């Protein structure tokens, strides 16, 4: 076979394979959207008629509304606290040396490895012991622990990319260390901090497994409320709310990407 045709076939089959795989990856989301628009409460493909009733149902269902509000409260507190502690953590790791540094780094990074149900269970037990069983405090604490590594990483990357001469120059011009931090360092870290904050927010809002353990009916967030609904019902209300969640989280992640550049944070660049 002539080489050019062979090359073309090869390229064609490669991209076909990649496309099929991408279809596999995006299929569920597409199916969710289609299902959410179906008029019938029974799952059937293709939907016979379209309707927005499930969206209406989802948006008016009391448990979902309360869970959404709970989720906002939890996420607002958790992501903001994680931002403050995460920034301190990144700064600590990048700039200081002290005995026990490795230990702190290990403990605060370990939520990435510890199963979410172990973390959730642990906070449930801790909360019980402290008399805070299933209160918002415990939920927020658990969420902060879970999302901290992501914020820290985002800030850390920004910190590493900061030109050290900028801070030296500020000091040389008469800025004491606190002023250097406030006027030069933090403003330049802002994109990394905001990106990390957004990622933390999305992860906290959609967190399910640990939340299942630490929340009660009163404090449950949206994923937990959805789980309860799925166990009892089979109608596409969940599809509608899932579709809304997909849109919301994707939008926020695109925003975070624009600010920080997920490509850079994840270290996938154009290395030519």
């Amino acid at each position: 076979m002539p080489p050019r045709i062979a090359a073309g076939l090869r390229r064609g089959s490669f991209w076909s394979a990649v496309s099929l795989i991408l279809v596999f990856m995006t299929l569920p989301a597409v199916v969710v959207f289609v299902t959410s628009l179906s008029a019938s409460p029974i799952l059937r493909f293709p939907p016979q008629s379209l309707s927005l009733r499930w969206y209406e149902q989802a948006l008016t269902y009391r448990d979902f509304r309360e869970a959404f509000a709970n989720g906002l409260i939890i996420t607002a507190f958790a992501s903001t606290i994680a931002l403050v502690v995460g920034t301190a953590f990144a700064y600590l790791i990048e700039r200081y040396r002290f005995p026990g540094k490795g230990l702190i780094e290990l403990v605060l990074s370990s939520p990435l490895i510890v199963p979410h149900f172990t973390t959730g269970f642990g906070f449930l037990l801790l909360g019980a012991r402290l008399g805070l069983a299933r209160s918002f405090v415990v939920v927020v604490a658990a969420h902060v622990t879970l999302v901290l590594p992501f914020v820290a990483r985002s800030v850390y990357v920004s910190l590493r990319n900061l030109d050290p001469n900028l801070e030296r120059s500020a000091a040389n011009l008469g800025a004491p260390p606190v002023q250097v931090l406030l006027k030069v360092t933090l403003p330049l870290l802002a994109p990394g901090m905001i990106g990390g904050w957004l990622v933390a927010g999305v992860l906290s809002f959609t967190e399910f497994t640990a939340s299942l353990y630490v929340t009660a009916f009163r404090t449950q967030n949206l994923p937990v409320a959805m789980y309860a609904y799925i166990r009892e019902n089979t109608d596409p209300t969940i599809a509608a709310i899932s579709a809304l969640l997909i849109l919301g989280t994707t939008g926020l992640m695109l925003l975070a990407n624009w600010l920080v550049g997920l490509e850079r944070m994840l270290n996938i660049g154009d290395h030519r």
Partner: protein
Amino acid sequence: MSGLEERLAGSRGVVALDRVSRAFGAIVAVNDVSLAIEPGEFLTLLGPSGCGKTTLLNLIAGFLEPSAGTIRIGGRDVGHLPPHLRGTGMVFQNYALFPHMNVFDNVAFGLRMRRRRRAEVARLVGHALAMVALDGFESRRVRQLSGGQQQRVALARAIVIEPEVLLLDEPLSALDKNLRGQMQVELKALQRALGITTVFVTHDQSEALSMSDRIVVLDRGRIQQIATPVALYNRPANGFVASFIGEINHLRGALRRTAEGTFFEPGEGQRLVLPGSLLERCEGRDEAHLFVRPEHLAVVDESDAANVLSGTVETHVYQGTHTQLHAAVPGCGSIQVRVSGGDVITRYPAGAPVRIRFDLGEALLLPEEGAG
């Protein structure tokens, strides 16, 4: 002149380093350096990479603490003062302009740290920008500026705070050749006008020669020589300085003392008469190193004059105003001779025999080739 220039001209910006050393683990970057900088002087720290010149600058600025010795600025011992209290103004190699601020805010930064009032800040910033020929640039963003413009803003930012001493860390190295030449002239003129004590770091010896009042030559952390450019060029203290500054020919040979005088013999049958003034550092030595500048050699036609050696032309390096002729001379290796005129290549083609006269009046004779 404005108040700024008057204030700067009168500054007692004396910097005194007394036996200053700085080590990083086992590596001694600055080794026992003592140095006194005169007020209003343009002093250059010159040397190859790793010689310690940037370390020294960072010690003066306060980004590093000395391992030994004292540093005084304006008479005060500043060794333990952090950078923001030292009263120096620094221009970094990559300019370090704050990317999140515009030109005005960059230049105003130091003034605001000193809590000057808004009207005063505006006035001083405007004046500093005018001094570096950037009036009207106040609201530009840093990324809209060219390299040369950024360099001027960095300069304005450093001088507007009226520092006791201005520190410049290879500020021109990122500029292309033409711009660099132009900036050298402007920078020197500005420094003259302001009368501000300035410490300038560079590895480019021609830049140092053209701009400095005095030059400190450093090698591996130690001072090799402190002198004016002319003195450095004509009377280098040792072989390192001789080789580092400008072009020079380096010959090794034996010393023969006779009743007619002392001769230098680079090889079989080669003999150069040495003027007495060269001999003092080589008392009692049998061998020595001779350093001669290419402009003190000439291509001649006489065959029997003293201090003429014969060789063969190897190659030419045409420089526009002159040509550097490279000739192979037995016993001496490759000798460079500066010849003016443009027809050198036709007069002395490669491979042709050539006679070179050595004018040793300004030459240097040393017992060792390296640091004295």
